[in-house]
């Protein structure tokens, strides 16, 4: 009894040391999260009419400020936030891409020129679908500007996720990123039941995966006695034998992250969420969550678990193969463009995993390049999906895309370029991305994995090209949707997506230089 009292006294007498935080290093994350708080205050205190302009100014200003602060950190490699976070080249590149994608995603979300009754989000998420309330709110032209607060918090979580350097911080980032996204998923203006169902599925399955992650983190902490990645790595290199518990821990952590990536067999939520969520959000999520989650996966596996890569590469080998094949094959059978793109995103995750499996500097660089290329193409794809409409809203059934390329050759051509890029045809960014991860994998000796990847690419090419066939080689019918003319927001996002897709296909060297010079993760 006395001993405890003594210990408490001793602890009390130890002077409490103020943690030193270098705010400059944390600035990108703090700016976004701070803006999120301001955004909530806007909702509380600003009159309804002033909210949208104020929120938009806040969101874009915060994102630009975050981007500037990320650029100003260029070249720095250090721990930050008492070792809970890091600043290093790959992390900064991923953060920078996430912010740029967030800017484009925010533009899609801000679009009000396409739907005659407003934007893509429900007038009041609290009103029951199909109820009198809902009709009233819609008729009065209500909008939810709360989406911007959610959006900023999600972006803040995404910025933390790839630079988190301990298990706890990674978990916090995961949740900060995910919770707003679950909510936003349920807020579609059209087909609200589908949207709410998707949100619930996403939330329940996401909660499961978070639990997996947390359980894995606890086991790993139990095994190594630390939550910090460098300490875990040091502890693992000092231990031999008794790896049963460790392997379970790695498996559980992997499951939690692979869920966010949408890798098979943790992919079941993807098609429903892609289909149900408001399209601009789907576009943003598909692009940005993938970068953030892959960033976290790469860091966890190469920094904390780098010493035991011979244990986890076989696991990722199998998952990569399953992900590529299942994604491509099931995509063949889809008749809804958003579901098709969802399965395509699963297949693409498989291709990126090929770079992760390579477990080398080249693999890291290849995966990052692939992620960037994929993100911009994806934003563009969803911008076009938003624009293709009939009287009931977005026309996502593929039959309504028949002959679209004849009716609107310009938009059709851009969409065809996106499809060719996703299929990995040369002179598009997707080809260079595939090329870089395949090269890294062969250099690491994973030749057979690349051969499987090549077969999967071929299957995937079939469904991408099927869309082109549908748009250009089929006659338009009465069913065929119209391409609505968007406002400047969507136009800019679409133009950015298309430009980057083509530019990275023809002249990828500057970005490759940037990624290669960024080096590897801080350990």
């Amino acid at each position, binding site marked *: 009894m006395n001993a405890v009292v003594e210990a408490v006294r001793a602890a009390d007498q130890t002077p409490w040391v103020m943690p030193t935080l270098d705010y400059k290093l944390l600035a990108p994350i703090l700016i976004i999260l701070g803006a999120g708080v301001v955004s909530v205050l806007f909702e509380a205190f600003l009159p309804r009419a002033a909210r949208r302009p104020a929120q938009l100014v806040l969101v874009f200003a915060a994102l630009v400020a975050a981007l500037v602060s990320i650029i100003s950190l260029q070249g720095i490699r250090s721990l930050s936030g008492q070792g809970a976070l890091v600043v290093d080249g790959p992390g900064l590149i991923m953060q920078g891409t996430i912010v740029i994608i967030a800017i484009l995603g925010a533009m899609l979300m801000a679009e009000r020129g396409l739907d005659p009754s407003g934007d893509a989000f429900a007038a009041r998420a609290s009103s029951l679908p199909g109820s009198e309330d809902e009709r009233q709110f819609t008729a009065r032209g209500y909008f939810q500007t709360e989406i911007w607060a959610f959006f900023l918090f999600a972006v803040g979580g995404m910025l933390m996720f790839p630079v988190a350097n301990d298990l706890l911080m990674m978990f916090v980032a995961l949740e900060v990123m995910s919770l707003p996204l679950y909510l936003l998923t349920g807020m579609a203006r059209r087909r609200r039941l589908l949207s709410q169902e998707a949100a619930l599925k996403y939330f329940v399955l996401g909660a499961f995966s978070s639990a997996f992650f947390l359980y894995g983190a606890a086991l790993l902490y139990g095994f190594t006695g630390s939550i910090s990645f460098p300490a875990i790595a040091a502890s693992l290199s000092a231990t031999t034998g008794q790896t049963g518990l460790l392997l379970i821990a790695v498996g559980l952590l992997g499951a939690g992250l692979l869920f966010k990536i949408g890798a098979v067999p943790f992919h079941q939520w993807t098609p429903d969420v892609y289909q149900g969520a408001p399209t601009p959000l789907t576009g943003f999520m598909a692009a940005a969550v993938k970068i953030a989650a892959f960033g976290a996966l790469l860091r966890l596996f190469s920094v904390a678990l780098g010493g035991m890569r011979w244990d986890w590469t076989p696991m990722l080998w199998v998952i990569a193969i399953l992900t590529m094949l299942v994604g491509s094959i099931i995509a063949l059978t889809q008749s809804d463009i958003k579901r098709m793109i969802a399965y395509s995103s699963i297949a693409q995750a498989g291709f990126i995993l090929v770079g992760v499996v390579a477990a080398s500097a080249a693999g890291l660089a290849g995966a990052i390049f692939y992620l960037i290329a994929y993100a911009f193409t994806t934003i563009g794809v969803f911008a076009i999906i938003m624009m293709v409409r009939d009287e009931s809203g977005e026309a996502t059934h593929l039959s309504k895309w028949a002959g679209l390329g004849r009716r609107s050759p310009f938009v059709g051509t851009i969409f065809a370029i996106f499809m060719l890029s996703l299929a990995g045809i040369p002179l598009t960014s997707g080809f260079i991305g595939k090329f870089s991860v395949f090269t890294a994998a062969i250099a690491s000796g994973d030749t057979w994995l690349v051969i499987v990847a090549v*077969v999967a690419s071929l299957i995937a090419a079939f469904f991408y090209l099927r869309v082109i066939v549908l748009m250009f080689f089929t006659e338009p019918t009465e069913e065929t949707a119209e391409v609505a003319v968007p406002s400047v927001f969507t136009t800019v996002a679409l133009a950015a997506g298309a430009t980057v897709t083509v530019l990275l296909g023809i002249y990828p060297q500057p970005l490759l230089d940037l990624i290669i010079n960024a080096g590897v993760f801080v350990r």
Partner: protein
Amino acid sequence: MNSFPWLTVLGAVPLVGSVVVALLPKSRPLLAKQVAFAISIIVLGLTIAIALQFNGSTSEPFQFVEYHQWIPAFGVTYSLGVDGIGLVLIALAAVIVPITILAGWNDVEEPNVEQVGSVKGYFALILALETLMIGVFAATDVFLFYVFFEAMLIPVYFMIGRYGGAQRSYAAMKFLLYSLVGGLFMLAAMIGLFVVSGQLTGRGTFNWFELVGLNIDPTTQKLLFLGFFFAFAIKAPLWPFHTWLPDAAGASKPGTAVLLIGVLDKVGTFGMIRYCLPIFPAASDFYAPIIIAMAVIGIFYGAFVALGQNDLKRLFAYSSMSHFGFIALGIFVFTTIGQSGSVVYMVAHGLSTAALFLTAGFLMQRSRGSSLLSDYSGVNKPAPVLAGFFLFAALSSLALPGLVSFVGEFMVLLGTFQRYIWVGAIATLGIVITAAYVLRVYQKSMTGPVGSGLETIKDLRGREITALVPIVALSIFLGLYPAPLLNVVNPAVDTVMSVIGATNPAPTVGSSSITSEGTQQ
């Protein structure tokens, strides 16, 4: 050393032309055609200028060399250059494109403007394709070659899919998927080659000149060779990778078919001689018997199927497959005369294919677009000029002495006899079947009583004759005087032969080791 970037300019002109044509107003189809034709003539002029400067007698096989860094991170360079083989094939493309444009002048307005893509689109695609064809034959970097090789699929895909016949969507997809299968395996092999070159030299490269000198160990060679060869065998196409060709040819416009079979498919055989042989000499040697067997089977298979075909376009596709068998045979017998013969055969086949498809296309246009042989008979009475050109095309296809196709076929067979006497003897029999199906087509369609509905068909117009005359003239000229062709091709082939370390066998000795291969056929 020539400092002016001739090849880049040559490739850029049709690309710029393609953009210009695509941007013309839709309401001015005639202007689009005129601009496209003028551009293709400029390209032809530039090609002639390049050919005249080409020095066939220097020791440096590659000329008009350009070299720039492109993606240093992957050792990728933008490097161009032509040897005799590349030059000849670029010239073939430059000759065929204006002919196709002229011959296809009215192709896309019929039968229904509503149903097909815009007129300007078709001509813009042809010009874009010309850029890529020039690029693919001029590239001396494997990565660059691959980019052109794959990018080429896209315009053709649209040309078949948007402007083709009843089965166009199916045919376009089949064409693209077959090509992509090959292309992706080539991609894997190409990456493998890059990694291997990195292991051997310390710095991975795609540059052809550096890759040729590498001593890759034979086991790796065999694997990588397969990736490349597979792509080329589909492209060429060799038996048994040919099934996309009849569908693609059957569903496309005659002009598309000419470009596809006449020029594009040559990329397959070109790739074998430019990439498979010099980079993987040991593997080429290892696989040669199998490939020769495939080639000989293809010669007979294509010819027999052609004998039984009733659809003209499919028939010509099968006959081309038979001819591609000869070309591949010439390449893989590893004799100078055989390989030179193959290159000459590529040119000859391009010309004769153009003549066949275009005259058949003119005939079909005059008769409600039917491509069935059974719908035609006695055409030579109402349309003697058309029948005359058709006879010429047919004779050119069966390699009548005095025409360039005879030179090619004769050289290939001669080269084969030098090395494998039995294979040569068997392949020669293929000529007989060729004669049988070619003459059967002529006899059924052109001679005999005039078929119903054919009495009133018009003979060829001035534009159509203008398109065909250059083909006839070139076939006869090069048939009687092949020296200009052989002078540039032979040194290039000698280089290939020396790189792969093959020597020509003494003329009278038949190699006994491979005769068993021949008797299997």
